[in-house]
């Protein structure tokens, strides 16, 4: 089995390097096809591993070589394929294979085609390291690696100021969280003596509660950055500057879920510190609502989906925080499928609309883009959690978890958010595909994407529809590792009331969205309508002014402080002190050199003066010696 592990892990790397070879040469299809094939290989290997694990196989654990060893620290390049990582591997390889194939079409006309595939495959490789590593340090490699690739890909169109700005923002914000992660890792090392998951988690049960709490908090800070939890969430929406396949792969399906993965992976730790878990869940619930609310009014197709991702991540954290790790992982998986699908559909729309992102400028696209329309609608249905789509199984489960664990506030927040989710998803669908063909004003002639792109998307569609049915198989597999808590309501009646109630609520929300946006009256907003001047609307569309606050109160002061440090402190204080000392020495030379007047008379006077000074010193000394007793008496009298 180890060979499959290596194939799964390294094929993306090979693909990346292969595409990288063509980095400087003009666009060539092969630079896209080969990495896609290699990723498919990786996917196949992962499937083999999945089958093996499903068949009750022992987990596959390899140690490739030593990475770092110093003192008592020993970090190998170790990889493990177990129930959790194999799930992630499947998600990652599947979605990325599809995204790769899709990108061959999507990036068709881009002159950075080869470079794109190199980055994309490199990302997959990093992600594979992240999920497959058997220790925290390896996890951190992947963690940073995906951050790097995300930086490269967000800033892929580096001639765009906004893209590069967003790339840097994403990187730096992730770095802030990574610091937390790093500290968490240090804490793990110094309290358990190792960074291997197995030994470390085994040792944790014997640790002080306080230490564990800190470890949990710091690791979670890391997770917050990658998964864009409040207050480190702003980068995700800005990251939409990257090419859409990137958004599908990185900022929906895989990288942003790394935080969830981390919490799931560290379940033995979080089991020991339920209070931190509760915090995670509360934050998750807050983010779910918070992000959904911003999605309500946004006018950027990709950003809306991004906020929805954020919101769904919140759901996952609720599950993970409440100890329902397998539920979190399950939602992660299902979400990856339908969200990637949604993004890829959005990519098609963008292509058709010549990179126009404002759904208000679209409308009625269902006529020209039938395939995309169907896919996006179904993906939105799945996202909204309508039975029997994937979202229903995973998302409702989270609601149940919250209910069963008796966190009713969380439950109600999530429930409300579910409605919002349905609303904004279908607001988007309605605006894009229904109603009047507003794009015509702008002289755009939309067209459907390449066939093969739609074909490539179809597995995702399939999975978005049926993934829910794997629930029990999945449960059996993954609970070999994760706590096998089943969340059953005490009474069947309650269960049904809840389920149906939720479904109704969601459907109502959808209907409302359609009613409001799927008609011909929708106009391109021009900032004059009443709703746009509503305070609420403003707050929401400005993302609660958080980016503004960051810019004004963090970025600007940092920039100004830096400038002050350089120009005022470094130059005018630190350096000036040094130069000042030198200057004082030099200028005292200049000032006192007049002593050497060149006049013999003065020189002789200096000599005599010297003698007189010496004589007076002698007199002083003589007197002091003579009257030392008296002087002491006087001094003591003065209280010295």
């Amino acid at each position: 089995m180890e060979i499959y592990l290596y194939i799964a892990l390294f094929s993306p790397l090979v693909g990346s390097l292969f595409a990288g070879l063509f980095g400087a040469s003009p666009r060539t299809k092969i630079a896209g096809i080969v990495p896609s094939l290699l990723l498919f290989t990786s996917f196949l290997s992962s499937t083999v591993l999945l089958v093996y694990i499903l068949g009750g196989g022992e987990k596959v654990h390899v140690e490739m070589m030593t990475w770092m060893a110093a003192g008592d620290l020993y970090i190998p390049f170790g990889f493990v394929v177990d129930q959790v990582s194999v799930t992630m591997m499947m998600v990652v390889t599947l979605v990325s294979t599809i995204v790769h194939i899709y990108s061959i079409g999507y990036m068709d006309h881009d002159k950075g085609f080869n470079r794109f595939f190199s980055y994309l495959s490199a990302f997959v490789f990093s992600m594979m390291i992240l999920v497959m590593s058997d220790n925290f340090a390896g996890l951190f490699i992947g963690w940073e690696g995906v951050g790097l690739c995300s930086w490269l890909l967000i800033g892929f169109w580096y001639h765009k100021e906004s893209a590069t700005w967003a790339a840097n923002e994403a990187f730096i914000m992730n770095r802030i969280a990574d610091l937390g992660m790093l500290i968490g890792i240090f804490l793990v090392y110094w309290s358990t003596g190792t960074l291997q998951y197995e030994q470390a988690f085994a040792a944790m049960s014997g640790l002080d509660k306080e230490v564990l709490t800190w470890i949990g908090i710091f690791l979670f800070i890391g997770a917050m950055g990658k998964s864009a939890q409040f207050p480190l969430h702003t980068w995700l929406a800005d990251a939409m500057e990257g090419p859409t396949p990137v958004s599908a792969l990185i900022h929906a399906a895989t990288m942003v879920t790394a935080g969830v993965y981390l919490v799931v992976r560290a379940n033995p730790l979080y089991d020991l510190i339920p209070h931190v878990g509760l915090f995670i869940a509360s934050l998750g619930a807050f983010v779910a609502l918070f992000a959904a609310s911003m999605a309500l009014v946004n006018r950027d197709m990709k950003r809306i989906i991004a906020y929805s991702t954020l919101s769904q991540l919140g759901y996952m954290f609720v599950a993970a925080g409440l100890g329902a790790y397998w539920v979190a992982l399950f939602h992660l998986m299902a979400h990856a499928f339908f969200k990637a699908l949604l993004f890829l559909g959005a990519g098609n729309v963008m292509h058709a609309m010549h990179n126009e992102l404002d759904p208000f400028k679209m409308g009625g696209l269902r006529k020209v883009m039938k395939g995309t329309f169907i896919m996006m609608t179904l993906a939105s249905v799945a996202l909204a959690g309508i039975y029997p789509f994937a979202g229903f199984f995973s998302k409702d489960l989270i609601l149940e978890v919250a209910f069963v664990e008796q966190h009713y506030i969380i439950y109600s927040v999530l429930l409300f958010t579910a409605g919002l989710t349905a609303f904004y998803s279908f607001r988007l669908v309605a605006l894009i595909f229904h109603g009047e063909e507003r794009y015509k004003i702008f002289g755009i002639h939309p067209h459907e994407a390449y066939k093969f792109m739609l074909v490539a998307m179809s597995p995702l569609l399939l999975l978005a529809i049926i993934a829910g049915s794997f629930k029990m198989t999945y449960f059996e597999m993954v609970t070999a590792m994760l706590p096998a808590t089943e969340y059953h309501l005490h009474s069947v009646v309650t269960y049904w009331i809840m389920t149906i109630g939720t479904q109704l609520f969601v459907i109502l929300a959808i209907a409302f969205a359609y009613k409001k946006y799927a008609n011909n009256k929708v106009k391109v907003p021009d900032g004059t309508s009443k709703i746009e001047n509503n305070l609420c609307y403003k707050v929401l569309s400005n993302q609660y002014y958080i980016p503004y606050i960051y810019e004004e109160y963090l970025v600007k002061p940092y920039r100004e402080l830096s400038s002050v440090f350089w120009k005022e402190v470094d130059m005018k204080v630190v350096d000036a002190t040094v130069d000042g000392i030198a200057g004082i020495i030099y200028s005292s030379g200049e000032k006192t050199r007049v002593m050497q007047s060149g006049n013999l008379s003065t020189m002789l006077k200096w000599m005599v003066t010297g003698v007189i000074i010496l004589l007076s010193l002698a007199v002083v000394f003589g007197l002091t010696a003579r009257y030392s007793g008296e002087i002491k008496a006087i001094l003591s009298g003065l209280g010295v």
Partner: protein
Amino acid sequence: MMEIGLNHYLVLSTILFAIGLIGVMRRKNLLLLFFATEILLNSVNIAFAAISHYYGDLTGQLFVFFVIAIAASEVAVGLGLLIVWHKRHGNIDLDHMSTMRG
């Protein structure tokens, strides 16, 4: 009648020395400056002679002889320099003698 003792000689010597010093400081004329230095040396000579007598030891007088000899040769060198200077510049004023400074 006051007995003239060693201390008187020494005081005289010191006073002369001080006069010499003042002369050294005040005089702007090179020649007078040389005179002042001669006064310095000779004031010491007086003291040496007196002390020598006081101790009944000839070393002091020996010193005096050497000082006189040296003073003489100093004058020779000094006057030589002075003459050259005067030839070149036509004056022996110290204030004109400050091309090098700083």
